[in-house]
């Protein structure tokens, strides 16, 4: 019972902290519904994407390549490349969820999109003493309500698609979310160094195929963050 109680407490907090993201995921999911429907997918296919794939950027990538009649393998490789960052998320959650039973980890993997990962990471820094069950509750508390919203807005976008103009700049909502997520972390020097490396690296390597520039830049940024921490932050802490 105690376990269920702490899971529920975490779930509630996660759900509340995830709520602001409905403002971003709502229009984004609707945008996907509109684009997919206008590209010629039927309602079941549009919903199939949002329920089975549940990764907006990759879903939109897939549709745009399908519109160019790209072969299945190219569509898959490019869209999966967009999702490869989630492999890093998966690794990042191992210290927190690695000890859970296999079926719980397999289930949790379904909700491993940007917002549950990012909010859980921020929460680890803010509340390092949460129990594993409470933290797992927090993670699913962010993910499950947002996923239900994702299905609903996809459906709305697919059915009401013709009423929504495609050119009002709603794609800006994606970087807006991501920047708002990382901004509070930039007060720390290693985080700032990693963020700058990520941007500089991605822009420099933007010609690499299949979005791999982003991934190469991310790996370099991880090393820069860890090195800055090791050289500048840890010695200072030891000196205290």
């Amino acid at each position, binding site marked *: 019972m105690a376990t269920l109680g702490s899971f529920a407490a975490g779930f509630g907090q996660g759900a509340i902290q995830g709520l*602001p993201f409905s403002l971003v995921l709502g229009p984004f999911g609707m945008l996907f519904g509109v684009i997919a429907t206008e590209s010629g997918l039927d309602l079941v*296919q549009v919903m*199939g994407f949002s329920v*089975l794939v549940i*990764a907006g*950027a990759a879903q939109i990538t*897939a549709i745009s390549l*399908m519109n160019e009649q790209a072969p*299945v393998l190219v*569509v*898959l490789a490019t869209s999966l490349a967009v*999702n490869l*960052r*989630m*492999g890093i*998320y*998966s*690794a*990042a959650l*191992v*210290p927190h969820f*690695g000890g859970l039973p*296999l079926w719980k980890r397999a289930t949790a*993997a*379904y909700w*491993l999109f*940007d917002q549950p*990962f*990012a909010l859980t*990471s921020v929460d680890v820094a803010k509340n390092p003493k949460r129990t594993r069950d409470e933290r797992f509750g927090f993670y699913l508390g962010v993910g499950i309500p947002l996923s239900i919203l994702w299905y609903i807005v996809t459906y709305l976008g697919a059915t009401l698609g013709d009423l929504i103009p495609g050119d*009002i*700049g709603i*794609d*800006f*909502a994606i*970087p*807006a979310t991501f*920047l*708002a*997520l*990382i*901004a*509070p972390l*930039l007060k720390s020097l*290693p*985080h700032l160094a*990693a*963020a*700058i490396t*990520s941007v500089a*690296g991605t822009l420099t390597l*933007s010609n690499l195929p299949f979005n791999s520039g*982003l991934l190469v830049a*991310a790996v370099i*940024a*991880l090393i820069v*963050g*860890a090195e800055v*921490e*090791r050289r500048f932050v840890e010695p200072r802490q030891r000196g205290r």
Partner: protein
Amino acid sequence: MFDANYVWTIIILLGIGTWLIRFSFLGLIGERELPVYVKRMLNYTAVAVLPGISVPMVLHSANGSFEPLRITAAIAILVIGVATQSLMKSIGAGLLIYFGLSALL
């Protein structure tokens, strides 16, 4: 209209592939302890990936055009986010600036 086989092949394989990426480390490693250096690097995953996705989208809109308004709104989000440490305030201000000004201009 697309061929239904084409569409469903992509949906199902993309769904399985995405789940496998998400499950990868959680599924393989389980309780095994990660090396200290790897753990330290993983503190920086969010700031290593998300800025790299965001900044090109700020510099160019979906149709490839350069919009100073996006850069203004993005800087506002970062400054307000660092100053207030509040997600809601920074995203609210940023979207308000972006959609407000683009309606006006």
